[in-house]
């Protein structure tokens, strides 16, 4: 108290000693997203927020950031009541948020993005040099290495995230909310992020950390609050938490963290790739003479750090990227560079990695999204022209029920579903098409453990039914749990393939990073 210095953060901004939300209620049409929630964060603390998809985590945090307004309840900052009217208001009060989906302008530079929406001392002119200077200072303090002059689109996801953090710190965040920051990061990037978060906390920032990965929560947080269906289940010190305990708190029942798998029974070859090459988005070599065989009734896992050609691989198979050399065959037919519609017709399904961009149309309803490929299918149309929405809704309702998708109705726009539920919708759609070959890219990214368990079981069931599944995932645990064979990708090539029995993890890790 006597020494005002202790109230300041290294960034020069005031601390938020404590922030308390009490009795917070938030209703959306058809959904009670927050039901009398109590929550608090203190300076120097990393507070993890856990809960199933649609439990209300993002909603609760968006209320702190002024994006939503509570219908009932009170927010107090440093014991004084606070009404947070807008994100600008939140920023002025020292609250920063890194969203589940980034919000940077791709064509602007790092410095420009950080300066965006800031007042400048030179009136309408931007002091970009000043900004750059300050960015460099900040990034030195927190080891957040980025070049302020680079445009965003040239940065890897992990770097973009650092820019988001820098931007929040630059604007004076004393309390930083991170909504699923690790979902899109490689394991190395996660380790880097955690170092930054620990240092931020040590310096007196308050942090809210949302994740579906229990081991991360156990590793990084001081306290955990679990939400379920818009209510707070409990808040406990992380020391007292274990994985099974947290899982049970979230889901309300014990969760299988491992599955029994039937022995593989591979049959005829469904997908054959011979020396397939393709360019990456930036025009460099994306895929370099990849050969792969996938049989009915087996799951082949593609392991690797993301950005090593996995996306190009999936897109070459699904007709979304030009194959520059080599051939792709499905069911013995040459489908090299065939259009996606032709591939759908012969039973190819694809769960895309970037589901928000590729997998759904956010402005369309759940029902409309459910028939993204099949909107012209005879079973959903009259004379192939008039869409029979009653039939579409009926099929969609069945899928909602079967896959336990949380949505108020089939007419809800997909943009108002939670991230995990969007993923379930994509999965439901792709499996309902009864695929012969399924390409599943990061199928459980951002998905809660209950749903992950469910998706994994579905994939195994599909495999037992004879579907050929290519599982692309960065999550080695997932690859190990589901695959029959594992191929490792590095720099656009398949650098090794093993049968998934007594796999040497060390060896896999080495292959993934380009070692021998």
């Amino acid at each position: 108290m006597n020494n005002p210095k202790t109230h300041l953060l290294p960034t020069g901004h005031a601390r938020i000693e404590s922030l308390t939300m009490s009795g917070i209620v938030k209703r959306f049409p058809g959904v009670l997203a927050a039901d009398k929630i109590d929550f608090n964060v203190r300076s120097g603390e990393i507070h993890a927020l856990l809960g199933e998809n649609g439990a209300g985590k993002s909603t609760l945090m968006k209320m702190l950031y002024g994006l939503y307004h509570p219908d009932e309840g009170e927010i107090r900052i440093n014991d004084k009541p606070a009404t947070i009217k807008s994100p600008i208001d939140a920023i002025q009060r020292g609250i920063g948020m890194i969203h589940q989906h980034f919000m940077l302008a791709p064509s602007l530079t790092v410095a420009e993005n950080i300066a965006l929406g800031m007042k400048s001392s030179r009136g309408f002119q931007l002091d970009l040099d000043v900004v750059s200077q300050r960015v460099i200072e900040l990034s030195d303090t927190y080891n957040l290495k980025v070049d302020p002059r680079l445009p965003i689109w040239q940065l890897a996801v992990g770097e973009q995230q650092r820019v988001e953090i820098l931007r929040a710190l630059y604007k004076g965040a004393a309390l930083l909310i991170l909504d699923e920051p690790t979902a899109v990061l490689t394991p190395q990037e996660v380790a880097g992020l955690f170092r930054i978060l620990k240092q931020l906390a040590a310096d007196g920032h308050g942090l809210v950390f949302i994740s579906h990965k229990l081991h991360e929560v156990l590793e990084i947080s001081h306290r955990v609050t679990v939400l379920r269906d818009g209510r707070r289940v409990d808040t406990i010190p992380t020391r007292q938490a274990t994985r099974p305990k947290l899982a049970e708190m979230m889901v309300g029942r014990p969760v299988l963290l491992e599955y029994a798998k039937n022995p593989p029974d591979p049959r005829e070859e469904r997908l054959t790739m011979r020396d397939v090459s393709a360019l990456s988005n930036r025009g460099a070599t994306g895929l370099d003479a990849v050969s792969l065989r996938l049989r009915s009734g087996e799951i082949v896992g593609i392991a690797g750090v993301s950005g090593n050609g996995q996306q190009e691989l999936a897109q070459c198979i699904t007709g979304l990227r030009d194959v520059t050399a080599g051939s792709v065959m499905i069911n013995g037919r040459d489908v090299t560079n065939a259009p996606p519609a032709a591939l759908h017709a012969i039973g190819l399904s694809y769960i895309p990695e970037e589901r928000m961009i590729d997998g759904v149309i956010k402005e369309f309803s759940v029902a409309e999204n459910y028939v993204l490929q099949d909107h012209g299918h005879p079973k959903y149309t009259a004379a192939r022209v008039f869409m029979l929405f009653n039939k579409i809704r009926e099929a969609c309702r069945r899928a909602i029920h079967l896959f336990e998708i949380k949505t108020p109705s089939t007419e809800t726009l997909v943009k108002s579903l939670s991230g995990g539920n969007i993923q379930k919708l994509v999965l439901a759609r792709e499996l309902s098409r009864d695929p012969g070959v399924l390409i599943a890219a990061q199928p459980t990214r951002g998905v809660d453990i209950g749903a992950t368990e469910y998706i994994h079981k579905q994939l195994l069931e599909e495999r037992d039914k004879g579907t050929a599944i290519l599982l692309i995932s960065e999550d080695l645990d997932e690859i190990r749990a589901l695959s029959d064979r594992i191929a490792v990708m590095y720099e656009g090539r398949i650098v090794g393939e093993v049968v998934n029995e007594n796999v040497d993890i060390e060896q896999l890790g080495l292959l993934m990073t380009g070692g021998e």
Partner: protein
Amino acid sequence: MNQAVGTSLAARLNRLVDFAPVLVALLLALLVSSVLLVALNADPLAAFGFMLEGAVGTENATAETLVKATPILFVGIGITIAFRGGMINIGGEGQMIAGALAGTTIALALGDARVPAEMAKAPGAFDLVIVASALGGGFLAGALYGGLAGFLKAYFGVNEILSTIMLNQIAVQMMNFLLNGLLLDPAVAGFNNIPKTARLVTAAQLPRLALPLGDPWVFARTRLHWGLVIAIALAVVIYIFLWRTSLGYRIRAVGENERAASYAGIHVKRQMMLAMFLAGGFAGLAGVVQVLGLQYRLQTDGSPAGFTAAAGFNGIVAALFGGLNPIGAIPASAFFGGLLVGAQKMQREIGVPASLITAVNGLIVVFVVSSEIFILQRSKRRVSLQETPLAPARASAKRADSPDPADEPTAEEAG
């Protein structure tokens, strides 16, 4: 707890609240206009009174409002399709002209071929073949003209805003050239006259429209014609097309998210062209209907808006005002029709300069359109800011990619 509940009252209320900003915008526009009027020593209340009277005060005024609204509605329907398909079509003017040129040529030629000279002026004659061919030809010409911009965008990445604006210029010059030459009315050839075609035979004209609501029938003595009915019917057809057919679904899918559309197996380029084709077709209809229903000949004063009266631009505003929904475009077009007609009366009665009227019109347009954008912004904010940074560049005015309102596309200027 989070389970299905159906559309709640709250959702419906929310939608109602959405219209409030439009009304506020209208009031604001009227307020600012009042200030201008007061500055010119005119009584704003009286001025707006005249405006209202001019728009709907008499049977004839109402009819004129609807007559003006008709081409705006045709264009507005087309623009709605274009916007829904992610295309910004500023080429309504040029497409109207293309449609009018083709439609008029067909109507004149078929009129000569099918109607004996002595029957050319027979009252009440109607030849479905001529009218349908002219309408069809006008649609097709406009559609090809719009489709050209779509093709350039789809296959060569030419920005459709630029190409349609340039195609407007070409169309105007083409019309002036043809009306002074090939298509010039032989009766006035050689005189230094207004460039215009010969008059259509009556059988090629769209009949006048009157409603059996009294004696004489309502609108019997006005210029209101069947074009309005055609436009309203097509608005309903296009509503069904966009939201109930697989073709419409594909156009909307491409407009909302190209990447998801190609993932879905939709031929993105084809939908882009189709959207522009249809948009141009409707503008073409607007053009040919002006000739068949109202002017009975194609004529211009040589200025860019000499034939279209800027309906090709006003249709854009009407489409936005109508919430990018063809049904919504119906009242929106009527509103703008009223604005145009009412303004003339206001000008006549209180003698303010004509440019003030344009300014008042412009103000209303700017305020209303920015309120539309405000609504879209707000609904964006409501659903959080879940935009991903590397989404493909998207260019339609109905969407805002940036959380900063400053980046919003500004309102189109109306003539």
